[in-house]
């Protein structure tokens, strides 16, 4: 019998609020997405100047990963190639695409590089030295069933021992990130890695412990 997988921790950023493991960590109403992300960065007391170069999708997903991994020492227990990422969203990098296109006559490589949704994977990998399997899929809506199957398969085939998976999407002022840290380890906040639990967390409901 294989060891069961857990959602070791989770983080949702939506509606100008940050929720970690079901508790509101931060909230800042009516400031707009760009300001909200910068204020959240400052609130978290992170010193990572590259943050300011990121587009809003990378800022959003990267901040969610920072909150997700904060105080999670288990990351140190694994080799870089044993830790991976599966991220999904609906609008790919369209927000960055439009910004790049508006300045195309003086095309900037610093903007062009963010016209790919998987740059967020790269940003999280660079920050944490994660080198394992990573992928970026597009779905019209959050698809917990797919995430569950894909991550289960990576663990079953010994590709990963720890995985960040979930959703990060930005289009204009509409945004949402929901990230899950998946592994065999058990922490105080751990819940079963199920489709239902991911859906409940995504919708902002506390999953059953």
């Amino acid at each position: 019998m294989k060891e069961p997988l857990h959602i070791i921790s989770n983080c949702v950023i939506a509606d100008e609020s940050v929720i970690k493991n079901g508790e509101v960590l931060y909230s800042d109403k009516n400031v707009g997405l760009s300001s909200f992300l910068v204020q959240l960065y400052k609130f978290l007391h992170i010193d990572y100047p590259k943050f300011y170069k990121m587009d809003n999708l990378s800022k959003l997903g990267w901040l969610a990963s920072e909150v997700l991994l904060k105080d999670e020492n288990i990351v140190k227990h694994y080799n870089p190639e044993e830790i991976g990422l599966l991220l999904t969203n609906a609008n790919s990098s369209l927000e960055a695409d439009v910004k790049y296109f508006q300045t195309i006559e003086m095309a900037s490589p610093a903007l062009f590089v963010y016209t790919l949704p998987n740059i967020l994977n790269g940003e999280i990998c660079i920050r944490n030295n994660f080198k394992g399997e990573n992928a970026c899929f597009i779905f019209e809506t959050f698809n917990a069933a797919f995430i569950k199957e894909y991550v289960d398969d990576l663990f079953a085939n010994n590709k990963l021992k720890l995985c960040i998976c979930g959703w990060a999407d930005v289009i204009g002022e509409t945004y949402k990130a929901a990230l899950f840290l998946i592994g065999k380890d058990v922490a105080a906040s751990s819940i079963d890695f199920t489709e239902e639990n991911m859906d409940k967390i995504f919708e902002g409901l506390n999953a059953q412990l």
Partner: protein
Amino acid sequence: MKDVFIIADNIFSPLGSTTKENFDALLHDISAVKEHHNAFADEPYYAALFNNDFSLPASPEKNYTKFEKLIIASVDEALKQSGINVKDDKTLLIISTTKGNISLLESEVYDEQLQKKIALHTSAKLITAHFGFINQPLIISNACISGSLAIITGMRVIQSGKYDNVVVTGADIITKFILSGFKSFQALSNGLCKPFDADRNGINLGEAAATVVLSSNRKNADGIKVISGAVSNDANHISGPSRTGNELYQCIAAAMDDARLSKENIDFISAHGTATIYNDEMEAKAIALAGLTSQPVNSLKAFYGHTLGAAGLVESVISIESLQQNTILPTKGFEVHGVSQPINVCKQIIHKQINTCIKTASGFGGCNAAIIFSK
């Protein structure tokens, strides 16, 4: 685990609309890369583009985008060979692309309607409906390893038993959006690109679609299998490759381990070989770390240009055809060895019995992929 066979394939490129037409063009040293003068750039540039009047078998009543038309043309031809039932609940479609419909930003007004039209899930729905697949398709957009990752994903969902047949397709088109971006990186070659060459100075961009149909059921006695694949991240830089090649090597080693193959079992390597200084150097280091310096290595970028998300599929289809025909293709554009490692860059056609090859790919965001095909 179940074996995964390639039961049909297609390349729809400026060199032809079937795998055979494409492979024959390559055997005759014909490149799709040409000098272009058009509104996409102030200066002439080298790229492999479709003529504007390219004709497609897609049903004319539908107002498909160019990206969707290319996918439909490629899938249509591959499906006809495959004989699979798209309406079976054990059949899946996987679509891969780097930028999909992004060129629509250049020709249409940006509003909510265009947002929806550009969205890859919209294209996926149209393509799914066109062919009548009943399962929701998967869509992969993972920079220049998109097509390779799509093949690996297709292999995995067959190995796990979830699906019996997977149609893996991908396409990218080149317009001002993409051309200007690569130009801003000073990554475009001013002539035909020269992979692994001492004088290489950048890429040529290219347009293409390609498809493979994967199945748990062997169709022909000489069927090629996709036997393993792996993905990694450099965790180094979002737009520059690893300086060590260690992470691409990690992928190659993982794929070889999964397939229980040692270096003596590998007959050739189909590299990414974009002809940028840093990519080719990184790949040479990875190939050397894997101990594969004596195996012939080719890059097809001077034939097709860099077809972005489609590249992994296009080059995999050519590699599969190479295995079937026992023919390793040369690296067009390569003359003088120009990487730090003594890899064996293939300069001319090699005819010999071959059984196994590795296809590698790397892309922005630090992503790498390796796939092993075998008889």
